[in-house]
């Protein structure tokens, strides 16, 4: 038997080294498999794996990859299952994202992520949406189920007039010029300069996932960066490269998703509002535009091209 009391007599440096060595021999709970196994392949991802995929896919570096590759996230059979606890943590984070304020943080890396959206969660901020009821459209053809003006439950910021938004936004606010659409029913601006135009649903403008809301146009002081473009797939969410009046755009349809863009200072910003429908997003210079509606891809692009 070794004389373990020799350990007590080890010189300080050796004693410390022995402790470091011991640290490498300690049993520590297993952690999930690395992201290395993620590869292109099938798009069929069973629901149990999706939460894990969100984590795995986020492990991608910013290397440029074809969009199709990103759409076809396969699943390595050798990977161990994600541990439930961390999956739950991610789920909790996504739910939090739906109610938290806009969050940006200064770390290099991914520039844009369309991730699976949180389940619909009430927007909790009491300061949002209660202002200026007088500008509510008096005769919205499809009354919203809530008491406030269209968009008031979405946490879009302060309700303002179009002129006020134009004066306050850090970029020129543009409105679709399609004559059948008319002016927005409500206009909102938030603390980071995001402007949102909301149209109530009406004949020819069907309701989105948000009852009574037909179209939302969001204008963000920031850009999406296709070089760092990343799709965190929900099995039912698809993304497609489209052309919007000569600008590179993305048509995102299917399940709700989250949206991240890069603000003017280069900080990635989480969009925390749940999106209400299929989405068309594109950037022109320092401004990103986003349309949410239930009109479908082609009509969305046509509408988008009237913005200017």
């Amino acid at each position, binding site marked *: 038997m070794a004389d373990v009391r020799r*350990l*007590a007599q080890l010189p300080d440096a050796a004693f*410390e080294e022995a402790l470091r060595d011991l*640290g490498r*021999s300690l049993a520590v709970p297993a952690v999930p498999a690395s992201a290395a196994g993620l590869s292109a392949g099938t798009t069929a991802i069973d629901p149990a794996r999706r939460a894990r995929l969100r*984590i795995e896919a986020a492990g991608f570096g910013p290397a440029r990859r074809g969009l199709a590759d990103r759409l076809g996230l396969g699943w390595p059979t050798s990977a161990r299952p994600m541990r439930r*606890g961390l999956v739950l943590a991610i789920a909790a984070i996504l739910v939090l994202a739906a109610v938290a304020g806009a969050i940006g943080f200064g770390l*290099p890396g991914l520039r844009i992520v369309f991730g699976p959206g949180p389940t619909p969660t009430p927007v909790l901020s009491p300061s949002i949406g209660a202002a200026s009821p007088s500008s509510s459209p008096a005769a919205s053809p499809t009354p919203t189920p809530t008491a406030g003006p269209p968009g008031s439950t979405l946490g879009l910021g302060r309700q303002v007039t179009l002129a006020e938004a134009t004066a306050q936004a850090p970029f020129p606010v543009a409105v679709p010029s399609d004559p059948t659409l008319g002016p927005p029913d409500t206009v909102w601006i938030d603390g980071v300069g995001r402007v949102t135009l909301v149209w109530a649903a009406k004949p020819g403008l069907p309701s989105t996932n948000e009852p009574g809301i037909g179209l939302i146009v969001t204008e963000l002081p920031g850009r999406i960066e296709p070089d760092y473009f990343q799709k965190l797939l929900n099995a039912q969410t698809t993304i497609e490269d489209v052309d919007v009046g000569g600008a590179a755009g993305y048509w995102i349809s299917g399940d709700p998703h989250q949206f991240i863009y890069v603000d003017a200072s280069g900080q990635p910003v989480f969009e925390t509002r749940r999106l209400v429908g299929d989405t068309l997003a594109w950037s022109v210079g320092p401004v990103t535009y986003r349309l949410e509606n239930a009109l479908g891809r082609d009509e969305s692009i046509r509408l988008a091209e009237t913005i200017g």
Partner: protein
Amino acid sequence: MAYESLVRRYQDAAVRTAYLIAPDGDAEDAVQEAFVKAYRALGRFRDGSPFRPWLLRIVANEARNRRRSAGRRAGLALRAAEDRRPGDAAPSPESAVLDREERAWLVGAINDLGDADREVIAARYFLDLNEAETADVLGLPRGTVKSRLSRALGRLRDRLSATTEGPNRG
């Protein structure tokens, strides 16, 4: 950067930290809660300060909060693989390389230390944090780390000197 990618990047370190700071607690639950709390607090994290110690401090706090009562303490343990390792040659008296039996003794002696001693040893040697990082993660003034570590090592040596029985494997 998506928050998920931060979780990805740091979950190993977080689980390791939670477990080594409080091996008798629920490390996984601590890590889950820590990531959620860190997410909520991200607004305060814009100034380019290092993310890792900030996160690990939250993890360490959560891990401590989940520490079970002393009676149910499991303590640190060697990896199972260690038990299958063929016996090493007897180490020379001043070698820092420990054989399996010595490791088991050392783990047992560390498990017998108080929480404060164990924490500082774990942070400094098992998590390989420097003194400043140890202070950050444990939420201690920097000067305290040095003195606490010194006392903890002294008590650990005392226990090893007093050892007359086999290693405590429980």
